[in-house]
């Protein structure tokens, strides 16, 4: 099976750069599966897990927004942050989730606070999801 180069880049550094077989990401319009030879494409990403497979090995990253660029020779993921399942602090993510939920239930807040809590909740759930999927394997 042919492979392609996957690069995950955050503002701080190049997180990942290796050959992979396939990639599954969540774009703004829905899920995308990408194999080698995909047509060049650019799409923004949602706050969601990013899963890819190299040989038998599957890896999942928690991606916090960003976008995906598919080129003829490689695929680049530009994310605000990208964390491997093993690097995620689950307790912290759970605490963040509870905090965000509390804020969302508290209706008296203004619009921006609400929006912020919503985003925080998304990020926390994403982290929890990725870390739990990592444990199963």
């Amino acid at each position: 099976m042919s492979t392609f180069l996957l690069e995950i880049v955050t503002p701080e550094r190049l997180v990942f750069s290796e050959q992979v077989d396939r990639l599954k990401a969540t774009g703004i319009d829905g899920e995308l599966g990408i194999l080698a030879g995909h047509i060049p494409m650019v799409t923004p990403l949602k706050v969601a897990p990013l899963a890819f497979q190299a040989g038998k090995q599957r890896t999942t990253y928690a991606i916090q927004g960003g976008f995906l660029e598919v080129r003829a020779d490689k695929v680049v993921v530009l994310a605000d942050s990208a964390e491997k399942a093993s690097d995620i602090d689950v307790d912290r993510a759970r605490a963040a989730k509870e905090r965000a939920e509390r804020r969302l239930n508290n209706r008296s807040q203004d619009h921006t606070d609400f929006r912020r809590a919503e985003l925080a909740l998304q990020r926390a759930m994403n982290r929890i999801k990725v870390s739990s999927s990592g444990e199963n394997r």
Partner: protein
Amino acid sequence: MAKGMREIKRQIKSVQNTRQITKAMEMVAASKLRKAQEKAQAARPYSDKLREVVASIASGTKGIHHPMLDTRPVKRVAYLVVTSDRGLAGGYNANVLRHVSAEIRKRHTSADQYELFVIGRKGRDYFRRRSMPITEVVAELSDFPTYADIKTLAQAAVQGYEEGRYDELHLCYNQFVNPLTQIPTLTRLLPMDALETADQGSVKASYEYEPSAEDVLAVLLPRYAQTLIYNALLEGKASEQGARMTAMGSATKNASQLIGDLKLVYNRARQAAITQEITEIVAGASAQN
């Protein structure tokens, strides 16, 4: 004479202590400089990538419009100033702040024609003392800030432009040339120069955009602007360490020189005291004969 000698000795001791501190600071700054430079280097792929994509969209699709690319009549201007939290960095803060103040004085006549976003305690204190309109501040950053540290500020700065609160966003920071040289620079971040983004002709691939080129651009451009702000911050941090290293290096050198001079004075005084003592003894002895 003996009293004068003790005085000099104390002074020497005091300068030696100062030298010890400046020397330590120089070495700390040197090692931090290396790390800060690495950080700035590591951040480059991200912004390069973004520019590449933005450029390819801008060049690939004709007639695309986005408020961040269009110049509009300038009524209000925002400045984002990057300074340090701590002093003892030579002219690091003074240079960039002088630069901004001069620009503001030149372009604006009243305080409601501009607003300020400030990174760093030194800048905050400076503008506060002069009661200039500060919109948002981030201070007490670590020496190696993460993107998350300034994300809120960067977002606010870009959003203000998008909402039309101001018509230009300028970025002021110390550009890092080498450890000895930092140039205070003032660049226009928004609206972006279409030319600057379009001249990257190397990217020829025509992309599919999901959902559409406009939508992708709408996500990309603010992000790109924020990344540039982050890069400026990293470069500013590297400059800060460089400036501190240079300043502390010359402080150490001055201290060494001062100690040398004082030692010379001290030895002269000591010699004079001994000579005088001998003269007194000789004079006393010859008086008895």
